[in-house]
């Protein structure tokens, strides 16, 4: 009696899972294929050198680099240095100390010769109360805002409201901007200054690399398994995912690690939201919403060049904290903007881009988790044939690896950051390995993020950082 019912549930749920799986992978394949087209165009454009000296152009917009910092004493000095070491000429750096309880402010004071600005800010900064504002005596384009703790969004808003620059670049305090990073990211604004509202760039993993000063000098794949697996993920997410989505006009997220935005556009929509744990995703969705509702012709772009190097979590606990937060944030944003899902008022974005994004990133991991539960049951009941199961498993691994190889091709073809063939071999190894354990662990972590969402559990968590010039312990 029970067995036929279970068999019925298993068969029908398997059909639904297969349908979702086919749809999601078709979506991924299209996005990845489009990204190769975009990359080809990008590589061709990079071969053309301008006849003028771009560094001396009077048409370059000013950029405020805003660095929100909460307990970042370990990394803040190098992050600020890398922001000051930009080849892009017109920058102002604003560090926002968000009520740190460690020595972040003291590190900044001793490293950059700060003096207090005697007057309160010239206008309201749309953030928690300001404790003090400092100007560097030795570096005129560096300023530090010291404010009461209000979270990352609140810290970013303080800088966005203070600056007078046309563009602002939001970066994480545990990241280093590549010295040419701003040049790459600003290109969409120079090509189309009226329409471009935001641009993102490729975030690369810094953990295995060597540094000189605040710049990456030797790019290497980490030999630590967990870090290496994330490197493969980052390559796939940026070189294939976001590049293709940008080409399709469907880019929904610009990484909080590095994003370049029109300051006035972000101020108009009220800045970063304080009520979500993935403020980066929420901001881009709200920009889309505002522009579409106001019938503004706009674009949100992505450049494939590596613009920033970031530290990724090195322990399973830290990684779990991060991924649960990402998943919970996705659900929060989907809930907050549920009226956009499938809504033709928002054009292609509402009817195609957002539903497919939610299906792949939101429902996909849950379906995968369900699969890990239902398949063993089906085995035990003898519903699934062994040869069918193995074929299906190989198909999943094959498609997953194929998508990753797309992004490895992009890296080798377009950027050659990893110069030794052994490094590419290591990445290929990680690309295969991630299908055995890591992928399943991520699916379960997403499920835990779902639980966090329903329990309304605060989930920023604390992730351990290392100074960039220090080798992490093995």
């Amino acid at each position, binding site marked *: 009696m029970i067995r036929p019912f279970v068999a019925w549930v298993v068969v029908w749920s398997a059909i639904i899972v297969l349908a979702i799986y086919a749809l999601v992978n078709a979506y991924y394949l299209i996005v990845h294929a489009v990204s190769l087209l975009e990359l080809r165009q990008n590589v061709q454009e990079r071969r053309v050198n301008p006849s003028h000296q771009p560094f001396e152009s*009077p*048409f*370059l*917009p*000013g950029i405020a680099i805003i660095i929100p910092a909460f307990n970042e004493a370990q990394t803040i000095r190098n992050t600020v240095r890398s922001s000051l070491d930009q080849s892009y000429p*017109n920058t*102002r*750096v*604003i560090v926002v100390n968000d009520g740190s309880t460690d020595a972040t402010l003291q590190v900044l004071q001793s490293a950059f010769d700060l003096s207090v*600005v*005697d*007057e*309160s*800010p*010239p*206008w309201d900064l749309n953030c928690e109360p300001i404790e003090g504002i400092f*100007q560097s005596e030795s570096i*005129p*384009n*560096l*300023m530090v805002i010291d404010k009461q703790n209000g979270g990352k969004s609140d810290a970013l808003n303080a800088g966005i409201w*203070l*600056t*007078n*620059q*046309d*563009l602002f670049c939001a970066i994480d305090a545990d990241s280093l901007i590549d010295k040419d990073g701003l040049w790459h990211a600003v290109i969409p*604004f120079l090509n189309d*200054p*009226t329409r471009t509202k935001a641009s993102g760039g490729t975030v690369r993993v810094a953990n295995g690399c060597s540094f000189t000063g605040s710049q990456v000098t030797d790019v290497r794949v980490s030999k630590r398994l967990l870090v290496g697996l994330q490197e493969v993920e980052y390559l796939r997410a940026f070189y294939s995912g976001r590049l293709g989505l940008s080409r399709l006009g469907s880019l929904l997220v610009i990484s909080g690690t590095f994003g370049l935005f*029109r300051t*006035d556009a972000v101020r108009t929509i009220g800045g970063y939201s304080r009520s979500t744990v993935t403020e980066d995703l929420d901001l881009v969705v709200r920009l889309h919403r505002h522009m579409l509702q106001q019938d503004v012709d706009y674009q949100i772009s992505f450049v494939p060049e590596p613009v920033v190097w970031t530290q990724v979590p090195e322990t399973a606990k830290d990684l779990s904290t991060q991924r649960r937060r990402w998943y919970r944030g996705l659900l929060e944003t989907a809930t907050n903007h549920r009226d956009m899902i499938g809504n033709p008022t928002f054009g292609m974005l509402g009817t195609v881009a957002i539903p497919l994004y939610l299906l792949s990133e939101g429902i996909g991991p849950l379906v995968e988790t369900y699969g890990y539960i239902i398949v063993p049951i089906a085995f035990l009941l003898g519903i699934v044939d062994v040869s069918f199961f193995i074929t299906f498993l190989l198909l999943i691994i094959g498609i997953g690896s194929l998508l990753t190889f797309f992004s490895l091709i992009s890296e080798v073809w377009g950027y050659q950051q990893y110069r030794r063939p052994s490094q590419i071999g290591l990445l290929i190894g990680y690309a295969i390995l991630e299908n055995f354990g890591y992928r399943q662990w991520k699916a379960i972590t997403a499920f835990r993020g779902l639980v966090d969402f329903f329990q309304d559990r605060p989930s920023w968590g604390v992730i351990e950082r290392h100074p960039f010039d220090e080798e992490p312990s093995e």
Partner: protein
Amino acid sequence: PELLVPLLRILTHSKRASEQAPVAAVIANLEHESPLVRGAACGVLGKYGWRGVVRDQVDLIVDELFDDESAYVRIKVYEMLGRWGDAAARAKLAFAAESETNSRALFTIARNLGERDSQSFGPRGDHTLARRFSTWAEVSALDTIHQPLPP
């Protein structure tokens, strides 16, 4: 505007033309329907304040420009007057400060008037605000750099 704005911006950064160069078309653009064009025209005219004819013709419509609905245009007008820098232009800036409501535009006036004059303009009688702006005008991290992007 798609053609006019880049053209005006190039003129802003081109080598200064001779005294005979016609500027009437640029001045006419101060009344263009697009705020992008109005702002870009101010950028060009900031460079030609040494010509009396330019100052005289702008004087005729400067009050209207102070009332422009776009804060971007008003900021560009204040930058233009600041670049001229003569006594009459500074007096106009001080006059504009009395009615300017946008903080960033007011700050532009303070920055262009400099410490001595911005202490005395007292926007709406608020000397505290004037002193604050005067202090911040010296903070280079708050500079506006080069050509602003169109709003």
